[in-house]
């Protein structure tokens, strides 16, 4: 076996370099990087007085708020994510298969819907629970408030931990039993082995997951706005929506994106190292740890997490939806025909997200192919450039597009196309990563075989490459579709008047306090999101 590997001189050696491919990929990267470059330009060329004013007043507080929230949520998701992954992958916890699904499904719930639910249930005056308790005891009973830092941190943690859960679960699963056996044979106890071997081997996966969470927190708008905790994202949104101060918005955006780029840069550094968790030849699973008398507490913990992050939100939404449907007045309000109707919003959500998925995957192909098949500093740089979408929060994309489009192609401004472009830009990284991994798994010799059997490069693309990487591309598309469905701030800022998506519908009802009216749209959003999500989960080893 070793001999066979050694005698393979260059495993994915390229066919002669294609300059057209390089050109197309370069254009795609340029398209993705343009909004970012523009924001920096605007931020740097902003009025120095505006800079001074922001530096003296709000910038440091916003920085502190944003970093505190990102830090708290990242630590929280790490603790919950890793412990849930360990319990469902490494122990004899009863019902592991079912729990695995239920722990991953909260990814279909946008955190702002979680925030809406908590507000409706727990808000200090008028929340369902405080009212009920007051009615029961005859005096106000103190309940935890969802507002402010701790509320935001809690809600973001319980809806974002599945990122860490999935990545660490996959890492736990792919880990070789021999690693731990070797550690035990070298005189380590089970506990020492966990800390000295198991966890360090998971580190790249864990950090990658944590950094994704951090980027998501930086970009989050809906939750923090609802819970009245000011971060960069919500401050920029307010500047754009209320005051229309584009100069200040540009400055804040420039700072936020710098912050995000720093995080993204470390995440990309770690991506390369995440490899050493891969499964090798004679892999066999690590034997399960018997929980013994800890079984019950472990089960209760898992159930508690599932209840808070999935079951309660789902049940509440369901109850409200039924309530809304049973009340004729609400019913007619929700299901009225025309552009404000629920069916129209659902359709708008579907087509914009699907179109964004199609574009993102198509555009990602030349970049991914170039970087996988012709590895060089230049192609590597192009692929990394396409990752910057991760670092541009929805509000910033929106700001940048408003400014660029108004100047260059005013005909596009205030059209749904702009919304689609924003989705594509924001989700390009997922598409590029999915395409890269799909093409990377395809042996270059298959394409070469097709060439030697008389096919041109284009015929090879359609007869060999595309049919074989299609599942990988669909996964990339599903991911883009899923995140586009949930995207709130960019949609709110860029949509033409009267153009509602499900996310916008939920938001508009809920921010006016009509929680029950918002429930049907939220429930539909969840169910639609669950379809691509379960497709994605089915593809991973954890769920087979």
């Amino acid at each position: 076996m070793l001999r066979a590997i050694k005698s393979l001189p260059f495993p994915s050696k390229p066919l002669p370099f294609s300059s057209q491919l390089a050109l197309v990929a370069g254009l795609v990267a340029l398209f993705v990087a343009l909004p970012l470059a523009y924001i920096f330009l605007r931020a740097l060329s902003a009025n120095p007085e505006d800079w001074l004013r922001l530096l003296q007043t709000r910038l440091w507080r916003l920085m502190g708020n944003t970093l505190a929230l990102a830090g708290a949520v990242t630590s929280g998701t790490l603790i919950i994510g890793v412990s849930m992954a360990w319990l469902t992958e490494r122990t004899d916890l009863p019902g592991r298969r079912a729990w695995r699904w239920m722990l991953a499904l909260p990814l279909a719930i946008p955190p702002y819907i979680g925030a809406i639910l908590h507000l409706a249930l727990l808000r200090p005056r008028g929340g369902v629970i405080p009212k009920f308790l007051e009615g029961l005891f005859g005096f106000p009973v103190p309940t935890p408030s969802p507002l402010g830092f701790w509320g935001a941190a809690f809600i973001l943690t319980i809806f974002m931990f599945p990122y860490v859960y999935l990545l660490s679960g996959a890492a736990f699963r792919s880990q070789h039993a021999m690693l731990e056996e070797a550690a035990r044979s070298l005189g380590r106890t089970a506990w020492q082995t966990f800390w000295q071997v198991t966890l360090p081997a998971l580190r790249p996966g864990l950090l990658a997951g944590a950094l994704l969470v951090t980027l998501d927190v930086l970009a989050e708008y809906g939750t923090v706005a609802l819970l009245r905790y000011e971060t960069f994202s919500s401050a920029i949104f307010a500047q754009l929506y209320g005051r229309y101060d584009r100069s200040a918005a540009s400055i804040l955006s420039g700072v936020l994106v710098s912050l995000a780029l720093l995080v993204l840069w470390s995440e990309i550094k770690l991506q390369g190292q995440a490899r050493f968790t891969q499964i090798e030849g004679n892999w066999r699973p690590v034997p399960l740890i018997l929980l013994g008398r800890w079984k019950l507490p472990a089960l209760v913990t898992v159930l508690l997490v599932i209840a808070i992050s999935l079951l309660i939100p789902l049940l509440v939404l369901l109850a409200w939806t039924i309530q809304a449907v049973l009340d004729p007045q609400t019913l007619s309000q929700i299901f009225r025909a025309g552009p404000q109707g629920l069916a129209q919003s659902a359709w708008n959500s579907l087509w914009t997200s699907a179109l964004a998925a199609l574009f993102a995957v198509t555009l990602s192909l030349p970049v991914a192919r170039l970087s996988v098949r012709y590895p060089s500093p230049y192609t590597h740089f192009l692929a990394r450039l396409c990752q910057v979408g991760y670092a541009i929060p929805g509000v910033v994309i929106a700001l940048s597009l408003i400014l660029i489009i108004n100047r260059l192609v005013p005909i596009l401004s205030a059209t749904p196309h702009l919304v689609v472009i924003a989705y594509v830009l924001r989700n390009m990284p997922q598409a590029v990563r999915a395409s890269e991994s799909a093409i990377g798994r395809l042996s270059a010799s298959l394409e070469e075989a097709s060439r030697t059997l008389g096919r041109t490069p284009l015929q090879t693309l359609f007869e060999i490459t595309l049919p074989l990487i299609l599942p990988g591309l669909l996964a990339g598309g599903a991911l883009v579709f899923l995140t586009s469905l949930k995207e709130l701030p960019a949609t709110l800022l860029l949509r033409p008047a009267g153009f509602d998506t499900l996310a916008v519908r939920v938001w508009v009802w809920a921010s006016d306090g009509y929680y029950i009216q918002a429930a049907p749209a939220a429930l539909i959003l969840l169910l639609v999101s669950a379809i691509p999500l379960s497709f994605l989960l089915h593809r991973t080893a954890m769920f087979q």
Partner: protein
Amino acid sequence: MKTLEVQNLTKRFSSTTQPAVNQISFALEEGEILALVGPSGCGKTTTLRLIAGLERPDCGSILINGRLVASESRFIPPEKRGIGLVFQDHALFPHLTVFGNVAFGLRSRRNESRHKSAPNAVKAAVLDMLRLVGIDFLASRYPHALSGGERQRVALARALAPRPSLVLLDEPFSSLDADMRLTMREEVRKILKSMQATVVFVTHDQEEALFMGDRLAVFQRGQIEQIGTPDEVFHTPATRFVAKFMGDSDFLRGKISSNGIQTEIGLLLQPVSLPNSTLVEIAVRADDIDFEPDESGNAVIAARFFRGALNLYRLQLDSGQILHALKMHTYLVPVGTRVRARISAGHPLAVFEKSA
């Protein structure tokens, strides 16, 4: 006209390292099998990929059937070269059946004129090919449901089906088990010969090269050290490297004298065109050395390796020099025995001037 002509071919992958293929030239007659053999990283696979059109040469030219397919100014892409390539990993298309894989090359534009009006002709040609390699009963299987040997046969059938003027095989047996390898190579050679195919075959296994090739080209560091028939390469290696690589030679030090070569284990009576007192090395294989126990001998048995029908003895001469000798499996001498070693070859041995 030669089927394949390679002239001064050079390829380098980065400007800092030495070229992967360095100024090589050779030619192939129709129906000939040429084995490119050498240690890994010697440039033999790169040469094959240059001929296939999967790499672009930096210098030199390649002609297939007299047509210039690659030079500094001209590059014909692989799909227009009319070659068949069997890949090391077989590269079977996983989404096509065995039939679909073999038919793939017959359905290309290059062959369309030949088969356009007759899809039945494609079918017949595929089934003929599958019968030839002995797997016609597997036509509807997918590659993942095949054994290693079956995959090998599909890969060969796929490459041969369009009747290419030149067949290239890149270490085709390296993914097979040892015993499977022996049967497959015999069969593949028979099939290639029955089709009178012109073949370039790459391997790192010298025994395989000796078996498969009508001629051998021994590669080292991007250059051809020697090209010739298996007999020539084995019996009269042109360089010390060839002697070492083809058949595990030991190198016995010697000095030219007026009537032969003076060595530690006696005088070798062999005329050599080198001046007297030149220091030389003689390439000796285990079958060129004999010994018998002798208290006043010149060597000690250092180790014995049981090789089935034969015993391989490792002898340490008094100078420390190591030689090997083959004996029948019944001839047993314990390790440590003092013996007298001598050259027993019935043929001239390869002699190289000792480099300083």
